[in-house]
């Protein structure tokens, strides 16, 4: 019997109709009423269907504006798909580099607490989470200072740690390999190996193609809002070699 996919996307798409005239204000909308039909159609993601099985590691690769983050945000449930459906059979934790969502006047602990509360965690779970996050983020005595005292890197590290330490079945990561210094990146890779050992499902967006080949079993290529192709690892190996991947159509 075929395995039930943990993520199943059927025909999902995202189109933006962006007006070329200013529309940020109702005032503009009224002033440019005659020209309101002038708009550009942007296919952020063309209709795509995809199944991801439990324990699978999928990398998303492609140039800027090719729809990787749009796809990830739709899977995360942050953006709504214009068509089709997305079925998720498990809990999810996501990390988007853009906007870490911490309150600058509050301490790390309080921010982690807010994060946990928004994810629907219980009080004792949050206490446990806080310990793990602070240990992983390794921000030392900064833990008791408000976030505005942090450097950008520290903030990103804490943001990544907060979503990485969340207990979930599926992890979505947007450009985590660009976060932090060399030491922290090594820590990230170790952490990813840990997730692999726990048979978690991971979707990873990265511009670092070799890193994706190292970590993912399947790589999807995005181009102009289209999933243009995919490569699947045919033999498990820790060495880097493109021949281990087999190109196939989606």
């Amino acid at each position, binding site marked *: 019997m075929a395995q039930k996919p943990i993520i199943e996307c059927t025909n999902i798409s995202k189109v933006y109709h962006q007006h070329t005239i200013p529309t940020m204000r109702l*005032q503009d909308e009224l002033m440019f009423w005659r020209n309101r039909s002038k708009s550009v159609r942007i296919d952020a993601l063309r209709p795509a269907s995809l199944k991801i099985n439990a324990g699978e590691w999928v990398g998303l690769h492609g140039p800027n504006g090719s729809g990787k983050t749009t796809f990830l*945000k739709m899977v*995360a449930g*942050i953006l709504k798909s214009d068509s089709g459906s997305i079925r998720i059979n498990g809990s999810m934790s*996501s990390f*988007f580099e853009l906007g*870490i969502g911490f309150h600058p006047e509050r301490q790390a602990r309080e921010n982690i607490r807010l994060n946990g509360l*928004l994810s629907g965690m219980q009080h004792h779970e949050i206490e446990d989470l806080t310990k793990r996050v602070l240990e992983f983020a390794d921000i030392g005595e900064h833990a008791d200072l408000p976030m505005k005292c942090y450097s950008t890197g520290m903030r990103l590290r804490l943001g990544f740690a907060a979503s990485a330490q969340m207990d979930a079945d599926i992890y979505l990561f947007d450009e985590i390999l660009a976060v932090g210094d060399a030491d922290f990146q090594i820590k990230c890779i170790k952490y990813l190996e840990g997730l692999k050992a726990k048979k978690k499902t991971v979707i990873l967006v990265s511009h670092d193609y070799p890193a994706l080949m190292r970590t993912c079993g399947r790589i999807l290529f995005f181009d102009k809002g289209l999933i243009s192709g995919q490569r699947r690892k045919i033999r498990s190996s820790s060495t880097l070699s493109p021949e281990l991947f087999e190109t196939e159509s989606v």
Partner: protein
Amino acid sequence: MLGYAWSLLSPLVRFVVILHIFGPYVSQSISNYAFYLFLGIIIWEHFSITTMSCMGMLHDKASIIQRMVFPRVFLILAVGWTNFVIFLTHLFIFFVAALIFGVSMNASVVYLILTALQMTLVALGVGMLLSSYSLKYRDVPHMWGVAIQILFWLTPVMYPYVLKGGSLTHAARALLGQESVTSIIALFIQIQPLSIIIHDARRAVLYDAISGSPTLEHALGMTLVCATIFLFGFVVFQRRQHYFPQEY
């Protein structure tokens, strides 16, 4: 959200200015005008601050909305709860002042809790309606700032509330275009929810001997109206919330 000190200063300044300038003209027709005005202003401020904060909240929490999945209405409820508590402290100040100046009050002060609830429902309903579109159109908060100034004058905060009989007949005539603009405005002032809520609070606490406390039926009916406004705002908000992350 601004700090608590600011929530005190704004109504206080308004109170002092109106009492000083407008007071001499109406204190003949309204007994206890200072307290009449005080109660009106804190209820009005609760409405105006809550609707504004609903929109401010969505702007301030951009990073959380773009990054995490959770029911967005929690942000609105947080605004409601915060301002509800602030309003209760303002009511407390009102009571202390009434005690000091020996204004007689009766058991129906409990009614003010219901007032707080009703006003919070209305304010959140309107706030959700506005914030549903305040990200798409950045000038919505600005337009609301203008609208709320007009609304202030169309609510009996500083002048007496006059209830004329036959509102329904008037309303029907207004719909048929048989009423003058002035009388339509007068009718609006009489029947809009903010007027009624403020009037109810005043007659429960300060003027029950003259105009009688609100009846149970009236209180229930009014709460129902407020809940309907809340529900309407909620439905619109729920429909629009999926678009928030892409509207920043």
